[in-house]
């Protein structure tokens, strides 16, 4: 502890020098924000928003500086990006050899995530300045945002699985607090509860997976685990692959369980049911937590342990399968939803599905690991355009006071900046060149093409659907019918602080695709060059444009073509609109089966059987005592009778023994 304090103050003897040492401040500043605003609500009320935004601004600058130094100056040794432990602090020791040191570990992946998290968080803080104005619990809001940013940053720089798990739970609780921010609204409270419980269920998998891995490698540290499990000669590796349970080796079990944890957080099928409901939270929160950062934690987790996943085909196939299924499934549902935030939520799920299957089809090392870089590239670009979409949606909702598409339309005149920003984000997500999404999606598709044709075809179809539903949204909001005359044009786009993040993110969404991502991030940390194949990319782009065209035909002007089509596909449409009845299935399982068949009987059994036994023993005791108390009647003749009866019994016994 003392050492740590010394380090924090003096920045001495640290890898990456002063720059890396400053990494601790990226984490401490949001924590300070949370603690100070949480405790000093009364005193900081007036400066709360400025205070937390400034803190985060500083953190973002430090993160960008670290990224610059890591990627361009110090990070690479002999052409390989290094993993650097900047801080380590003893936290808990389980046995003499198994310790947990929490700290900060910087590798290419964590540095990239640091930038994404702080940057998007800063944008959201800025946007919230205007969006949450006049809110009674303003201070709490920024305090929770601080908690979230702190735990998310702690997660991405985790040195070990326990730290990751802790931050994993903490982001869960901050998500709970922020979804349920409007705590007087029953639907928000229910959504928050649902989100936490569903992800907790998935976390059970993560927990057991962590127990298995740590037990078998005798460590929680990422580096040690990866080194032990990728060394096929080590005794740990042999024991963990040799032992099996229900036909799968222990390693496979561990990875599958860890992936379940990741799937829960990343809203993958079938653990996605919490994400659409989570849209009950304030919209900037959805942009930060449920689009750009927390929901990609599952992708981060698989990527962090990718070296281990890569040697286990079964687990990796599961990742690919779940990823592509979620991508398609969510895209279909997104076409039918009418709440704009829910459309965006399903689109998030679909895009994370892309990242997951890209990891699933990837191999380890060099150009073979294209899927790995592509997945993280998509994570990076997605963070920008999806948070932009959510912030635009926030601006629209701020103006219209409704989430429903039918209340919108023709808003392009009223909100020109939002309109352009939304359009660029839609083009990015639809994969139209030269916007960001095109490049990352392109790499994902080519990785899929190289490894698994079926996945490639489904991914192509999905990208066409994606273009369709995004432009359905775009046309319905900004074109379609003329806007509602009750909306006044005065300050329709909100304050400057609301417009500024839109503009910054718009620029990012348009340009970040040009970053040669595989030069920075690859599965074995050795940079390589990947080029876009023009011939290959024609087909997906054409499909995307086709989707846009279809959306234009149906939704550009007010008409009833869309209704006609939905009428002719009644059954499918209704099933998709009701989200394929998965919510109902869960409700059935939890309410009917778990509550009625386990909970109620357990409570009844306890009160009646077990407690009944205890009461029974008590009443037996009192029964016996009441029945034998008559013996002491005080009547001499009774005592005489007992006396002689006793003598007779004894006599008989003696005679019996004698003979």
């Amino acid at each position: 502890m003392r050492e740590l304090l010394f380090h924090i103050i003096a920045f001495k003897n640290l890898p990456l020098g002063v720059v890396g040492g400053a990494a601790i401040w990226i984490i401490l500043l949001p924590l300070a924000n949370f603690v100070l605003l949480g405790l000093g609500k009364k005193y900081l009320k007036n400066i709360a928003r400025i205070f937390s935004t400034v803190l985060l601004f500083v953190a973002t600058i430090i993160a960008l500086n670290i990224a610059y130094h890591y990627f361009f100056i110090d990070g690479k040794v002999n052409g390989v990006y290094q993993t650097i432990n900047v801080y380590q602090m003893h936290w808990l020791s389980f046995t003499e050899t198994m310790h947990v040191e929490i700290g900060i570990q910087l590798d290419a992946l964590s540095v990239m995530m640091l930038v994404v998290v702080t940057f998007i968080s800063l944008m959201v803080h800025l946007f919230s300045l205007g969006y949450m104005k006049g809110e009674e619990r303003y201070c709490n809001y920024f305090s929770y945002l601080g908690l979230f940013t702190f735990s998310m940053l702690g997660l991405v720089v985790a040195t070990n699985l326990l730290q990751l798990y802790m931050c994993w739970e903490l982001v869960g609780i901050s998500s709970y607090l922020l979804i349920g921010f409007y705590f007087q609204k029953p639907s928000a409270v229910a959504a928050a509860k649902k989100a936490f419980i569903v992800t907790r269920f998935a976390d059970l998998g993560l927990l057991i997976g962590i127990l298995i891995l740590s037990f078998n490698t005798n460590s929680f540290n990422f580096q040690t685990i990866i080194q032990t499990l990728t060394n096929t000669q080590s005794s740990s590796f042999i024991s963990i692959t040799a032992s099996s349970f229900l036909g799968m080796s222990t390693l496979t079990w561990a990875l599958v369980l860890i992936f379940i944890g990741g799937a829960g957080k990343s809203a993958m099928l079938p653990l996605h049911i919490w994400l659409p409901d989570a849209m009950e939270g304030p919209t900037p929160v959805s942009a930060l937590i449920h689009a750009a950062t927390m929901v990609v934690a599952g992708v981060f987790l698989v990527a962090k342990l990718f070296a281990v996943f890569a040697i286990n085909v079964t687990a990796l196939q599961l990742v690919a399968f779940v990823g592509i299924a979620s991508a398609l499934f969510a895209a279909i549902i997104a076409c039918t939803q009418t709440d704009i935030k829910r459309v965006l939520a399903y689109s998030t799920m679909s895009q994370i599905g892309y990242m997951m299957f890209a990891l699933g089809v990837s191999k380890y090392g060099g150009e073979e690991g294209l899927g790995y870089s592509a997945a993280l590239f998509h994570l990076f670009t997605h963070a920008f355009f999806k948070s932009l979409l959510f912030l635009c949606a926030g601006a629209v909702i701020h103006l219209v006071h409704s989430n429903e598409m039918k209340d919108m339309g023709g808003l392009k005149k009223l909100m020109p900046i939002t309109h352009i920003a939304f359009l660029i984000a839609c083009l990015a997500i639809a994969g139209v060149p030269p916007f960001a999404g095109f490049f990352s999606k392109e790499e994902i598709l080519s990785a899929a093409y190289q490894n698994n044709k079926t996945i490639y075809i489904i991914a192509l179809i999905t990208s066409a659907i994606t273009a369709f539903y995004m432009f359905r949204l775009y046309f319905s909001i900004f074109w379609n019918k003329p806007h509602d005359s009750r909306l006044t044009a005065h300050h329709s786009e909100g304050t400057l602080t609301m417009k500024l993040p839109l503009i910054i993110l718009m620029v990012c969404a348009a340009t970040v695709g040009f970053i040669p991502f595989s030069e920075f991030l690859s599965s074995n940390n050795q940079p390589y060059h990947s080029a876009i194949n023009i011939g290959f990319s024609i087909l997906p782009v054409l499909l995307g444009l086709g989707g846009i065209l279809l959306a234009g035909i149906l939704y550009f002007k007010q008409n009833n073509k869309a209704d006609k089509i939905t009428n002719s596909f009644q059954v499918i449409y209704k099933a998709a609109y009701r989200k394929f009845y998965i919510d109902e299935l869960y409700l059935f399982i939890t309410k009917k089966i778990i509550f009625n068949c386990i909970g109620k009987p357990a409570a009844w059994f306890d009160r009646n059987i077990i407690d009944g036994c205890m009461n029974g023993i008590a009443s037996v005791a009192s029964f016996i005592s009441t029945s034998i108390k008559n013996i002491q009647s005080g009547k001499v003749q009774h005592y005489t009778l007992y006396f002689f009866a006793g003598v007779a019994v004894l006599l008989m016994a003696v005679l019996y023994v004698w003979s």
Partner: protein
Amino acid sequence: MFLSSLVILPLLTVIAVLFCKELKQIRVVAFVGSVLQLFLVTYITMGFKIVSVFNFKNNGSIFLLEENYNWFPFLNIHYHVGIDGISMVMILLTSFIVAAGVLISWKIKELSKEFFILLLLLAASAYGFFISLDIFTMFFFLELAVIPKFLLIAIWGSGKKEYSAMKLALMLMAGSALIFVGIMGLYYSTHSFDLQIISQTIINPETQKIIFPFLFIGFGFFAALFPFHTWVPDGHSSAPTAASMFLAGISMKLGGYGCLKVATYLLPVAAQYYSPYIIALSAIAILYGAFATMMQTDLKYINAYSSVSHCGFVLLGIGMLTQTAITGAVIQMVSHGLMTALFFAAIGMLYERTHTRQVKELGGLLKAIPFISTIFIIAGLCSLGLPGLSGFVAEFTVFVGSWQRVETTYRIATVLSCASIVVTAVYILRAIASSVLGPLKNEHFFNLKDAAWNEKLAAVLLLAGIIIIGVMPYLLQNFITDSTVNIIHHLNGSK
């Protein structure tokens, strides 16, 4: 005489309270007494810490501050006290809860003198229990604690208080009877009541197997061992707030401590023999308690049943017999003590104001009484094992320790216990959602007053403990490690 002052101080406070005339005086005297014992324990803690650093051992014994007086020479009974790391953290826990309990009962009006006297008597007996190194003395203090509990519930309780008080007293007495038989068994095999002497004597394994169930189940009655836990829901829910805090916070720990330091430590062969049964019962308690909690509608019942589930972790950790798991069990004892006391304090505060504990009748209190509601939420989050609060550290340590047992039955028990984290989340979030969140159910709630200074102080005291353990668990672990290593050596040495 230094360590004994832990017992003497509360007794002196009792005498001082006896001479008080006004309500105000009684409060102040009791409060000063509890603050003094908090300081005393803090002082001992500091000393203990420094002694550990210098690796100073009392005559090669792991116990510090030993005092040994001949009490009843004819039967070889001594008044023998001393502390090791585990008892150290337990007395630390006790001092926190006693201070918080006195603060929370500030407003008690009827028979307040008697109330504080009983509370302080409980404190004295709990301290006495934890510092005893002679099992007869230990038993003496254990028995001493039962009667004040009975009276506290029967006089100041709510609901069906006579029934609950009687049930609690009878069941705990039954446990004591079993413990007494076990102690007699130990005495006749070793001719001593002294923990250290017994631990150095080799007891015939067959004898151990006979004595062990008496001791373990006997203490199990106190620690809510399934199926002897049924006093917990009734007792906790009928008790006044401070007594609930004490019951769940300390009294249940007497059982866990006894199971570990008497039953398991003194009878290592039998502990290994019975280990599968213990973990089966504790795994059942953990999951079954959690499911039963899910169906409760009274806040106190919710916390009482969840105590059954959480105390299952203590017994699970002990039953696993690995160093990590036992460390986890001890951390869980401390953590659960603080957390459940905080939870009961919050529920008591809510009940005092709204006059209902039914989840359905509450709602939206965060708006009306933010401080109390926040405390309620934090206590709940600690209960569901949120990292950064003590519950997480304890549970995770127990899980890691349990996973070290590779046999299939142990693994199944571990996985089932892990599954409880989901069920816990369900019942805690349900309780939070319907009692403090949502729209304000009742117009009257708007006029409620938020926590007074004494309640705030009590809550902050407990909360500080929870957060310190959650953020810096190594502090707590430093105390415990030596003692758990000693227990494990003793267990393994007897194989």
